[in-house]
C-alpha cells in the first residue's frame, strides 16, 4: 500500500450532477489508501449566485463572475502548493481556469478531468480538454476521436459507477416503505422525453421523484415532495422501496422517447448496487458493462409497458436479475474500480508518474513502545492505514477541525521543526 500511496486533490464543482460523483471519488480514493483532499467549491456557490442578484448590466455581471472564478482558481493553486498532490482530479464543471491549468502544467502537476457529462450537450470540453493531462469520459466514439483531433493525448473511457457503502440494500421501516415505496417509480429530472413517456403510466401505482416537473398537469399529481430536490440518501431509500424502478435516460427531445444513446447513467449502477430491480432503456455501451440477465432493458415504450406488467407479476424473476446485476456492479462498476483504472492509466501514460518522493518511516529506530502505541492509536482514530508515512499523518492531522490534542500538536510541531532545520 505504501508504495502506491498517492496524494490526490479532488476539485469539486460548485453544484450539479458531478458533485455527488466527486464525493464518491473522494471516498473511494480514501478507501484505496490514498491521501485525499477536496477543494470544496460548493461552499462558494452562494456567493457566486449572489452576484446574479445585483441587477447590473450583463457585461458587468460577466466580469464579476469571471473575477470570482479566477479567485477560486487561485485558491485551488494555493491548495496545490500546500498539499503537493500527485494528481489534481477535477470533476466536470470544476472551477479551474485555463490560466490555472496552464500554471499546473508548467509546475509539472499532473491533472485529470473526469468529464461525467454528455459531450453533445456540455460542449465546453473543447476549450478545456487539451489543458488536462488525462481526460476521462463516459462516452466513446466519435467523442474519443474528436478529443484526439484537438490534441488530447490521454483519453480514457471511464463509465460511471456506484459506491457500495452508500448504494446498498436497506432495511426500511414501514413508515419509510410507505413514504418512498410504490409499484413503479422514477427518480430524476423532468426532461422532455420523460414527460411524454411517463404519461402512459398515469393510472398505475407510480411515483415521480425529483425536480423540474413543474408545469406538467398530467404528471403533477404523481410528483412527490412538491418536486423538491431529493437527497442522495433519499434516492437510495426510493430505490430500495420500489418494486420496479424506471430508468429512462434523459433527452431534451420529445420526439424520440427512448433514444438508444451511448453513455450509461449513474442510476443504472446505483440501482444495481442497491439490489433493486430496474427497467432501463438500452444503451449502446451497455453490452460491455453488463451481460445478458444482469439488467432488464427496453428499446421502446411499447416494450417498456409490456415489461412493467410482466415484472410486476414476477417477483422471482425480478429478484434474480437484480441479484446478478448487483454482483456485476460490486465486482466491476464501483468508484473504487474506476479510480484504480484512472490511476493505472495515468501510470501507463504519464512518464515517471507519480514522482518518487522520499517518504520517512513513521518511527525511527529505538522508538519508545508506549509512544508508538499512542501514535498508532492516533493513526487508527484518523482512519489511516497502519503503514502511513509521516507526511501523510501530518496532513491528516491538519484536516482536523477545532483545537488539536497534545500529541497531534507535537507531531505538527516536529514536522515544522524538521523543515526549518532540515533534519530530514
Amino acid at each position: 500500500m505504501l508504495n502506491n500511496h498517492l496524494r490526490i486533490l479532488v476539485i469539486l464543482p460548485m453544484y450539479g450532477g458531478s458533485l455527488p460523483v466527486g464525493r464518491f471519488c473522494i471516498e473511494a480514493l480514501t478507501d484505496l489508501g490514498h491521501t485525499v483532499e477536496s477543494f470544496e467549491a460548493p461552499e462558494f456557490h452562494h456567493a457566486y449566485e449572489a452576484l446574479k442578484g445585483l441587477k447590473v448590466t450583463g457585461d458587468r455581471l460577466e466580469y464579476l463572475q469571471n473575477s470570482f472564478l479566477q479567485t477560486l482558481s487561485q485558491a485551488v493553486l494555493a491548495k496545490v502548493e500546500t498539499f503537493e498532490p500527485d494528481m489534481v482530479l477535477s470533476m466536470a464543471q470544476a472551477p479551474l481556469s485555463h490560466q490555472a491549468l496552464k500554471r499546473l502544467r508548467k509546475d509539472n502537476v499532473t491533472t485529470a478531468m473526469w468529464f461525467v457529462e454528455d459531450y453533445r450537450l456540455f460542449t465546453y470540453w473543447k476549450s478545456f480538454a487539451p489543458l488536462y493531462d488525462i481526460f476521462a469520459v463516459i462516452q466513446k466514439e466519435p467523442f474519443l476521436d474528436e478529443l484526439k483531433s484537438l490534441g488530447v493525448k490521454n483519453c480514457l473511457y471511464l463509465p460511471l459507477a456506484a459506491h457500495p457503502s452508500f448504494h446498498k440494500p436497506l432495511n426500511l421501516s414501514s413508515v419509510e416503505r410507505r413514504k418512498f415505496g410504490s409499484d413503479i417509480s422514477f427518480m430524476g429530472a423532468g426532461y422532455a422525453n420523460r414527460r411524454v413517456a411517463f404519461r402512459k403510466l398515469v393510472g398505475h401505482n407510480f411515483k415521480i421523484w425529483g425536480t423540474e416537473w413543474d408545469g406538467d398537469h398530467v404528471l403533477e399529481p404523481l410528483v412527490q415532495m412538491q418536486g423538491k430536490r431529493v437527497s442522495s440518501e433519499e434516492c437510495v431509500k426510493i430505490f430500495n422501496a420500489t418494486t420496479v424502478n424506471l430508468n429512462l435516460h434523459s433527452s431534451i427531445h420529445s420526439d424520440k422517447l427512448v433514444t438508444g444513446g451511448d453513455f450509461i447513467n449513474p442510476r443504472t449502477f446505483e440501482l444495481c448496487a442497491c439490489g433493486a430491480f430496474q427497467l432501463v432503456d438500452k444503451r449502446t455501451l451497455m453490452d460491455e458493462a453488463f451481460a445478458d440477465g444482469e439488467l432488464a432493458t427496453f428499446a421502446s415504450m411499447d416494450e417498456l409497458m409490456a415489461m412493467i406488467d410482466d415484472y410486476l407479476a414476477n417477483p422471482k424473476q425480478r429478484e434474480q436479475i437484480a441479484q446478478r446485476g448487483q454482483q456485476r456492479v460490486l465486482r466491476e462498476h464501483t468508484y473504487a474500480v474506476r479510480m484504480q483504472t484512472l490511476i493505472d492509466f495515468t501510470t501507463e501514460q504519464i512518464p515517471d508518474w507519480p514522482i518518487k518522493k522520499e517518504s520517512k518511516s513513521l518511527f525511527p529506530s529505538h522508538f519508545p513502545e508506549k509512544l508508538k502505541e499512542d501514535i498508532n492509536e492516533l493513526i487508527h482514530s484518523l482512519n489511516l492505514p497502519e503503514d502511513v508515512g509521516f507526511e501523510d499523518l501530518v496532513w491528516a492531522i491538519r484536516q482536523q477541525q477545532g483545537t488539536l490534542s497534545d500529541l497531534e500538536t507535537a507531531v505538527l510541531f516536529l514536522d515544522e521543526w524538521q523543515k526549518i532545520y532540515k533534519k530530514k
Partner: protein
Amino acid sequence: MKHYLVIQLARFGDLIQTKRLIATLVARGDGHVHLCLDHSLAPLASLVYPELELHSIAAHRTGVSREQAYFAMLNGNRKTFARLKALKFDEVYNLNFSPLNFRIAALFDPATVRGHFWDNGQEVSSQWARMAMQWSRWRKLSINLVDFWAYYCRDAVAPEKVNPEASPHGENIGIVLSGRESRRSIPLDLLAEYTTAIARINKSAKILLLGSHTEQNAGKNMHRLLPSDLQNRTENLAGKTNWADLIEVVSSMKRILSPDTGTMHLAAHLGTPVTAFFLSSAWCFETGPYGNGHTILQATRNCLPCLESDTCPHKTACLEGFQATDFIRFMITEKSTVVPNGINAYQTQTDEFGINNRIFAGTDPDQASRIEFRRFLARHVGLNTPLSNNAHHLAIKMYREKDWSVPRAEESRHVL
C-alpha cells in the same frame, strides 16, 4: 483567577524584549502569567521573570539526531503541550511569525489567541501582526519590537516603567564581542581601538569581554590587540558566564559597548547604560535598547537597514562611519560638531507610546515621517494622540480592505 500565556520561541534578545508585554499582564493583577519558551532560555527567564510560570520546550536547533528530535518533540514537548492545553488560558500571546508558533496555537481556541493562531488547520495572523509585516517594508519608520509586542494589549504599562533609567552601577566597562550575525558587529581591530580609548579615560575600570562560548577565540584575539598595560585589567569572560553570572556582571557595570545583542537588551533591562552600535541589518528603531538614557550610534546609508539574509554588494560600507578618524572622539565626547559622516547618534527616551530615539548628532531625514507614523500607530492602539497629518495615506497603507469589511476582535480590548 485568569491564566495568560505568552509564547516566545525566539532568542535571548527577543525574550528580554517581551518584557513590556509581560509586565502588562502581570500588572493586571487578575491572573497568573505563563511563558512558553525554548529549553535553553528557561534558566535566564527564571532570573529575569521570576514571577512567571515557565513551560519550556525543544524549539531551537540543538544538534540532536533525528531520533533524539523525535523523542524530544513527541515525548517532552507533548507533555508540556498537554499541560498548556489543560490550563485553558484566557488569553494566549503567540508572538513569533514562525511555523512552530502556528502549530502550538493549534492547542488553543483561536478566539483566545493574539498574534498568530490556528483556525481549523489554517494559519492566520491577527490584524496587529499583519500591520507589523506591512510596516516592516518601510523599516526606516518602524517602531521598537518591545512596543509592538506590548500593544497586543491595549492596556500596555507605561514605557518608563518597563526598564530602570540608565545609570552607572560600578566602575567596570563591558565590551560585547559580537552578535549572532558578524556583519552587524564591529570588527575586532576597531573594537580594540574603542576599548583602548574608553579604558584610558576610565583608569580604574576593569574591561570585561562578554560573549558566548562561540566568541571565546574572538575574546582571546581582542585581548591580544589591546595595549599591554590594558591587557592586565582586561578579562575575557566569553563563554565563561552562565546566565546568573552574566546578570551579575552586567548589573555592576558603568557602561557596556555592544552591537545589537541579547546582552545589550539585558543591560537595558538592568538599567546599565549602553552605548550601542547599529549597522547593516540592525536598525535601532526596531531593536534599540529600551529605556531612558542609552546611547545609540546608528550607521546611516541609503541602503540601510538591509536584510540579514542578503549578501552586501557594498563591502559593508556602513562601517565607514565607525572607521572615521573622529569616531572615537565623538563616542567619548558626544559633541555633535565632531560626529563623523555616516553616523547618527540618539539618546533613548520614552514617551506616551513607547521608546522614542532623540537624535543629538547627525541628520535624520526620516524623523518627521517617523513621528507621524508613531502618532498613527498610537491612535490605532487607543492613545489620545492628535491625528497625524498624513493619516489618510497611512491608513491606506496600513489597513486592508478586509480589516474594514470583516473585522474580527483579535487584539486584546482589555480596558482598565
